[in-house]
């Protein structure tokens, strides 16, 4: 009995000593650097990683975007990330990294050379948002935004704003991008962020004010300190890991309706009302139903897309009569037809352009494999090239 008690006492002592001296080797939170965003640029001799960090410490002072950034270079991405730890003495904690920005230099090569690090690593969550920067990733992370002290937080807000709704911003994550790359379609999409200067100089706590112009190439200090807001309404198209082209805002919006539901998405259209007034109207999409099918007709495949939109006029740039305003944004038949044609044209443009660039935007090769598996081997070579599309769009008044 006494021997048994002694044994348990020894075990207990070992556990206690471990806990009190090493915390079971848990790393003290103050020795970690919480990396909240990573920017990656390709440089001559490898990669440059720009990490935006949040250092856990007791303070009531807020940190500015460009004060919380660390750079490191390495032959590979892993090497560069490890270098951050070596330089700072911190353990770079990547599990809080919610945003990965790829600089424009990365797109000169197969982008998966960078992205697969995040698939390979257990330390970074593959639920992180992946986006491209029009300039270098470093510049984007160093930018000052009136929306938040930390630029990556401001950027993240754009991407997660209305996650479940169709929008011109095609948010993608490491997982989504990788799944498409390794799929039969070998294609992908990634939103590209452009910096837009505001007139607001310096005070980060003020809200975004009027937008002026697209930023230039950067350069002097004053320009660098000019607050910016971000535009991510353009998406880059990829095939086999290489950037092949772009989709504009409206194309992204209508494309995303095949993936998500729409509630309060907008697009502009030139209209003429019943009183003969003409101008541009902002149309609000209140509801969208979509279907996308790959059908085989007389030995050839066709992509058939159907989009049913419930729309209303939200605003016009010309005065309308009270009668028109009182109809709660109803469109006349002529304008409905015009809207249908506009959406159809945008979808067809997106399809044809991506097809010509070899990018399988609508994942048709994957659809061929999933839904027409018997035909896959016979048709897979040059499938996209021979594919035609038929988009049918119906617009109806919301009320």
């Amino acid at each position, binding site marked *: 009995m006494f021997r*048994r008690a002694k044994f348990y006492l020894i*075990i207990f002592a*070992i*556990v206690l000593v*471990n806990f009190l001296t*090493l915390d*079971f*080797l*848990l*790393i003290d939170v103050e020795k*970690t650097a919480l990396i909240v965003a990573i920017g990656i640029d390709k440089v001559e001799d490898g990669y440059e990683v720009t990490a935006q960090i949040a250092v856990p410490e007791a303070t009531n002072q807020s940190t500015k975007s460009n004060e919380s950034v660390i750079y490191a270079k390495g032959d590979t991405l892993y090497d560069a990330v490890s270098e951050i730890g070596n330089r700072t003495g911190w*353990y770079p*904690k990547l599990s809080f990294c919610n945003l990965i920005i790829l600089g424009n230099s990365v797109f000169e090569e197969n982008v998966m050379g960078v992205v697969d690090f995040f*698939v*390979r690593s*257990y*330390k970074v*969550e*593959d*639920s992180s948002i992946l986006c491209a920067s029009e300039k270098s990733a470093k510049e984007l992370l160093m930018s000052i935004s009136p929306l938040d002290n930390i630029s990556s937080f401001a950027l993240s807000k754009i991407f*997660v704003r209305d*996650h*479940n709704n169709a929008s011109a911003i095609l948010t993608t*994550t490491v*997982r989504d991008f*990788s*799944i498409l790359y*390794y*799929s039969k379609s070998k294609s992908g999409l990634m939103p590209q962020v452009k910096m837009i200067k505001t007139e607001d100089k310096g005070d980060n706590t003020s809200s975004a004010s009027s937008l002026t112009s697209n930023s230039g190439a950067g350069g002097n200090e004053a320009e660098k300190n000019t607050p910016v807001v971000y535009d991510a309404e353009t998406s880059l198209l990829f095939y086999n890991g290489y950037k092949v082209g772009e989709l504009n805002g409206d194309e992204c919006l209508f494309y995303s309706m095949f993936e998500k539901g729409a509630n309060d998405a907008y697009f502009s259209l030139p209209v003429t009302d019943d009183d003969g007034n003409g101008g541009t109207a902002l149309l609000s999409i209140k509801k969208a139903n979509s279907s996308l099918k790959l059908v085989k007709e007389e030995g050839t495949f066709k992509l058939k897309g159907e989009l049913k939109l419930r729309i209303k006029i939200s605003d016009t740039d010309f005065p309308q009569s009270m009668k028109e305003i009182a109809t709660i944004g109803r469109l006349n038949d002529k304008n409905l037809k015009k809207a249908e044609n506009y959406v159809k044209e945008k979808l067809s443009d997106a399809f044809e352009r991506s097809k010509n660039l070899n990018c399988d935007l609508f994942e048709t090769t994957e659809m061929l*494999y*999933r*839904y027409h*598996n018997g035909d896959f081997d016979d048709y897979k070579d040059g499938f996209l090239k021979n594919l035609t599309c038929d988009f049918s769009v119906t617009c109806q008044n919301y009320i």
Partner: protein
Amino acid sequence: MTNTKRLSVRQLCFIIITLFSVSKFYVLPAFVSGLSKEAGWMATSVNFALDYLILFACLIAVKNTDKTLYESSTEIFGKPLTNLTFILYAVYFIIKAFVPLLEQKNTISLTFYDSQPTLLIFMPFFIVAFYIAKKGVNAFSRSVEILLWVFALALLIIFALSIPAGKYQALLPFSQPPSRVFKGFYGNLIWFGDPVIVLFLGDYLTEKKKLIKKCTISFIISAVITISLIVVFYAIFDSIAERQYYAPIKMSKYSITLSNIGRLDYLGSILFSLISIYSITLYLLLATEIVNKVFKFYNNNFFVPLAITTIEALLIFFFQNEIFTSIAFVQKYFQPFFIVMAYLLPLVFTIATVIWKNKRRQNVQAC
């Protein structure tokens, strides 16, 4: 093994539901996705079908005898062969616990640690395993009554957060080449073969009323849970599924809810780990009981559970960073051994029991 009856049919059913499925949640989904792609769930279904055959055979063997497994085996095969087989089973259970234990160690390291932690962080597991192995089936069976509800809560959390994130067309096409299904089935084998446990646990059953029916239902529940997890897992990860090891900590993080409240899914993962640790402990417990029986040690012997736990700890110590090499090693060199111990011997034993019983009945009638 022992005549003290300490396990009810309900507790056995709880063991089948929880412990038969949880050990397949970690590396298996990624592994089978790598081998069978979208047919991973089909390959796993075949594994379950085969396991059910063995479970059914074991249940018949358990139901048809009032003696313990050791006594029945001695009667049919003789003492030397029975002792040898039992020792082989002790070895089998120790090796069987090895891969799931490495999976657990890595899951815990990845979830809580930024750097490679020492094995000492995993020491509490061995203390618990030693304690349960020493206490015997009685303590274990009572714990299982609580574990079922912990398991249900963990499942609820993981499935609620992961089901909406899946794109289920990823499971198409349903028509798959048999070779692809077979590849996954064969690769899966080291995670299967649990029904043989029932043969050993049968000794402790307090009653055997509706044993086959209840255990069959429990096994179906266990199979449905595991296959559903693999289906959801593949729907979430599709073409990158084969890289997504440790499914419970991976598959539930895509819910938009988590961006506001943090990694709530870790709660489910931790609960799964708790249950997994119990399922691994069961192997060590059975190995202890077997050694006690063969070498006629007292049931509350101190050194046998200590020795078995230490062997397992040493295995983990030497191979702690080599999980995938270890899986490949076990598959390459121990797969035939596993097949014999988990599938062949239980079948042989059941057939021999039935034949022996009929023969004895004929002898009695002849007399």
